[in-house]
C-alpha cells in the first residue's frame, strides 16, 4: 500500500495535515525539507529518522528539538509549558539518554495576558525542576497580534546516553516483544475535547509526563532493549509503522491487549477517530528481545509511569514495514499510517 512520496508541485500549499505526523508529514520531510537541509556533504541525512540525534563525533551526546503550538494553552492534565519540557525530555529518553540541559525559545503574540504567560512559564519551570533538567539558555520574541496563536514554544535538549543502551528505530528484530508502558489516546482526546467543548474533559486528562526515569529503569535490559519510541503525533499507528519501516520487520499487535481507556474509546467512537491514530505525550513503546521481555515489563511496572505496562504484540520477519492488528473477533487487518489531520465525521 505504501507508495513513493508524491512530488510537491509548486502551486500546492502547506495544509494543516502536513503537520499531523502522518503520511503527509513524512512526504513533506522526505521530498522537501530533508533534501534542503540535510547533508554534509550534500544530500539527505542517512539512516532512520529518530526523535533525537547523536552529535557528530560525540555519540554519547544526543540532541533534540521540538516546537509546541497547542491550542488551548491549558488542558486537563497539563499545559503548553509542561508539555514543552516533557516532549523534549521524552525525545531524548527514547534514544536512551538522560537529559542534561534544555533551551527554551518563546514566540509570544501581542496582547497575551501576562497572567497567562506567568502560568505557562511557571509550569515550564516546575516541569523542568521535577525532571531535574536545568533550562540553561533561551530566547523571547513578541510578534504582532494575529502573527502567532498566543504563544509558541520551542525547546531544545541535550542528553547523555545511559551506558549500555542504544535503542534505535532501526534495531527492532523479528521475535521482539512489543511493550507499551500505558494507556493510549489520552492526550489527543483531552486536548480536542477541551478545544471544542465536547464535554469529555471531566473524564479524560492528558498523559503528559517525563519518561526518562522509566528508561533508566530499563537500563539493566541493556543491548536487548532494541527500540524505544513515544507515540506522539500520528499515535501508536504512525510509531509502529515507522519502526517497522526503519527496522525492516513486520509488527503484529492484539486489539484485545491494547489499553484504550473507556472515555477515550467513547470519544473516538463519537467523532469517528481511531485511538491508534490519536496523540499521546506520556507513554512509550519498547521493542525488546524475547529473552528480556518479562524483565523489561517488570522494570516498567516498577515505575509510576509504567504501572499499566502491557505486552501488545511482537515483531515478525515480514513483509517488512507492515503492521497488522488481530481484531477482537479474530480477523487480521493492516494498521496504516494516518494520512493527515484527523477529521471528525458527520454522524
Amino acid at each position, binding site marked *: *500500500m505504501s*507508495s513513493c512520496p*508524491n512530488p510537491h508541485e509548486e502551486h500546492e*500549499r*502547506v*495544509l*494543516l*495535515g502536513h503537520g499531523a505526523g502522518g*503520511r*503527509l508529514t513524512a*512526504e513533506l520531510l522526505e521530498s522537501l525539507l530533508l533534501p534542503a537541509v540535510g547533508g554534509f556533504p550534500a544530500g539527505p541525512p542517512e539512516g532512520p529518522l529518530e526523535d533525537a540525534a547523536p552529535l557528530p563525533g560525540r555519540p554519547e551526546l544526543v540532541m533534540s528539538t521540538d516546537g509546541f503550538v497547542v491550542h488551548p494553552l491549558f488542558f486537563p492534565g497539563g499545559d503548553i509549558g509542561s508539555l514543552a519540557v516533557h516532549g523534549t525530555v521524552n525525545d531524548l529518553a527514547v534514544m536512551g539518554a538522560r537529559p542534561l540541559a534544555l533551551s527554551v525559545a518563546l514566540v509570544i503574540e501581542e496582547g497575551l495576558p501576562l497572567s497567562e504567560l506567568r502560568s505557562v512559564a511557571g509550569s515550564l519551570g516546575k516541569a523542568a525542576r521535577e525532571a531535574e533538567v536545568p533550562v540553561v539558555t533561551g530566547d523571547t520574541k513578541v510578534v504582532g497580534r494575529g502573527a502567532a496563536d498566543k504563544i509558541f514554544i520551542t525547546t531544545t535538549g541535550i542528553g547523555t546516553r545511559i551506558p549500555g543502551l542504544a535503542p534505535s528505530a532501526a534495531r527492532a528484530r523479528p521475535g521482539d516483544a512489543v511493550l507499551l508502558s500505558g494507556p493510549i489516546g489520552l492526550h489527543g482526546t483531552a486536548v480536542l475535547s477541551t478545544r*471544542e467543548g*465536547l464535554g469529555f474533559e471531566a473524564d479524560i486528562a492528558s498523559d503528559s509526563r517525563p519518561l526518562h526515569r522509566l528508561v533508566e529503569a530499563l537500563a539493566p535490559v541493556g543491548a536487548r532493549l532494541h527500540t524505544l519510541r513515544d507515540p506522539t503525533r500520528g499515535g501508536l499507528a504512525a510509531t509502529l509503522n515507522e519502526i517497522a519501516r526503519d527496522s525492516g520487520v513486520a509488527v503484529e499487535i492484539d486489539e*484485545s491487549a491494547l489499553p484504550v*481507556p*473507556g*472515555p477515550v*474509546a*467513547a470519544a473516538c*467512537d463519537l*467523532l*469517528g477517530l*481511531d485511538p491508534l491514530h490519536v496523540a499521546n505525550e506520556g507513554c512509550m513503546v519498547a521493542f525488546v528481545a524475547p529473552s528480556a521481555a518479562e524483565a523489561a515489563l517488570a522494570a516498567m511496572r516498577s515505575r509510576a509511569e509504567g504501572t499499566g505496562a502491557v505486552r501488545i504484540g511482537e515483531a515478525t520477519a515480514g513483509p517488512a514495514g*507492515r503492521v*497488522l492488528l488481530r*481484531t*477482537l*473477533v*479474530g*480477523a*487480521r*487487518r*493492516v*494498521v*496504516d499510517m494516518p*494520512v*493527515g489531520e484527523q*477529521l*471528525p*465525521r*458527520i*454522524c
Partner: protein
Amino acid sequence: MKYLDEYRDPALARRLLEELRRTATRPWQIMEVCGGQTHTLVRQGIDELLPAGMRMVHGPGCPVCVTPLETLDRAMAIAARPGVTLASFGDMLRVPGSDTDLLSLRARGADVRVVYSPMEAVRLAVLHPDREVVFLAVGFETTAPANAMAVLHASRLGLRNFSVLVSHVLVPPAMTALLDDPDCEVEAFLAAGHVCAVMGCSAYEPIATRYRVPIVVTGFEPLDLLEGILMTVRQLEAGRAEVENQYARAVRRDGNIAARSIVEHVFRVTDRTWRGIGPLPESGLGLRPEFADYDAALRHKVEDLHPAEDPQCLAGSILTGAALPVDCPAYGTRCTPRHPLGAPMVSAEGTCAAFHAAGRTRSPL
C-alpha cells in the same frame, strides 16, 4: 465504559460466528446500508469470517460520498467569496470537487471552519455579524433534526447572515431504487440503527413486504453486526421477510417523535441527485418555502457550474454494491486517501476508505 465492552466481547463474537455457520445453508448476499456499519465490518474483519460464499454488499449509506459533486462545487464557489465563512463537519472538507477541496481552499485563504454541530455555525453567525456564515448541511435522516434546529434557531434569533446549503438524503428511497434494479442481487438488508433511532422503522415495513426482503435494524458495534447478520440469515433460511429490530436499546418503532416533528417543520421531501447513483425521486430533504431566506443556494447564487467526475472513478458501482473497491483499477494507485478521486475514498464512512484503512488489497493478507 462497560457499555462498550459488552458489545465487543471476543468470546461472544466467536459464539455468534459459530451459530451463524450452523444456521447458513446457502451463500446469502446481505447489504449493510450504512457506512458506519461498513467500517465496523471491515475494521474488525467480520466480513472475512462469514460462512463460505456469504457476502456483505456495502451500501450507499455514506452521507459524504453521496453528496453531489455540484453541491460541493457550489459550496467551494461560495466559500471562495470574500466575506463568507463556510462551516461543515470535518470529513466534508477533504472531499474532492471538480477542481479542488475545501481544505485546499482554506490553505489558499478561504475562511473554512470545522464544526461539531450545526448550532456552532449559528454561533459563528452571531459572533461575526459582518460575515455571511454558510453551513454545508448534508447527511441522512440522522443529522436532519440538528440541521433543522439550527435553521429554526437562526430564524428565532432573526439572523440575517446565516444560511444552509442543504443536501439531505433519505435511506428508504435508495433501498427501493436498488431493489428495482433488475441486476440487484441483494437478498436482505441491515438497516442503519442511527437513522431508525430518529425516523423509526415503520417506513421499512412496506419495503420488506413488497420486495420480500428481510430487513434487520442493526447497531454499529461488532456484536451488533454479528447478531444483525444472524437474525437476517435466520429469516432468509426460514423464508420470512420481516422488519426486525436488533438495536432495541436505541430504536423504537416510531422513532423520536420530537426530532421527526422538527424535521417536518423545517424540511420537505424533494427529489435529490445522489453522487455516483444519479437522480432519485423523493429521496431528499430541502428547506420549506417559508425558510427560503436561509437557503444558501438562493442567497449566494452561483452560475456556470460544470461538475466533472474523474472518468476512472467507480464510485457509483461501489455505492450500489455492484463493485468492491479492490475491483477499481485506480484503487490504491491513482486513488488513495492522500489523493482521492472520489468521495468513497475520502470520508471516514466511505467503503473505499474503509478498505484502504484496513489494508485490503486484491490479494488476501
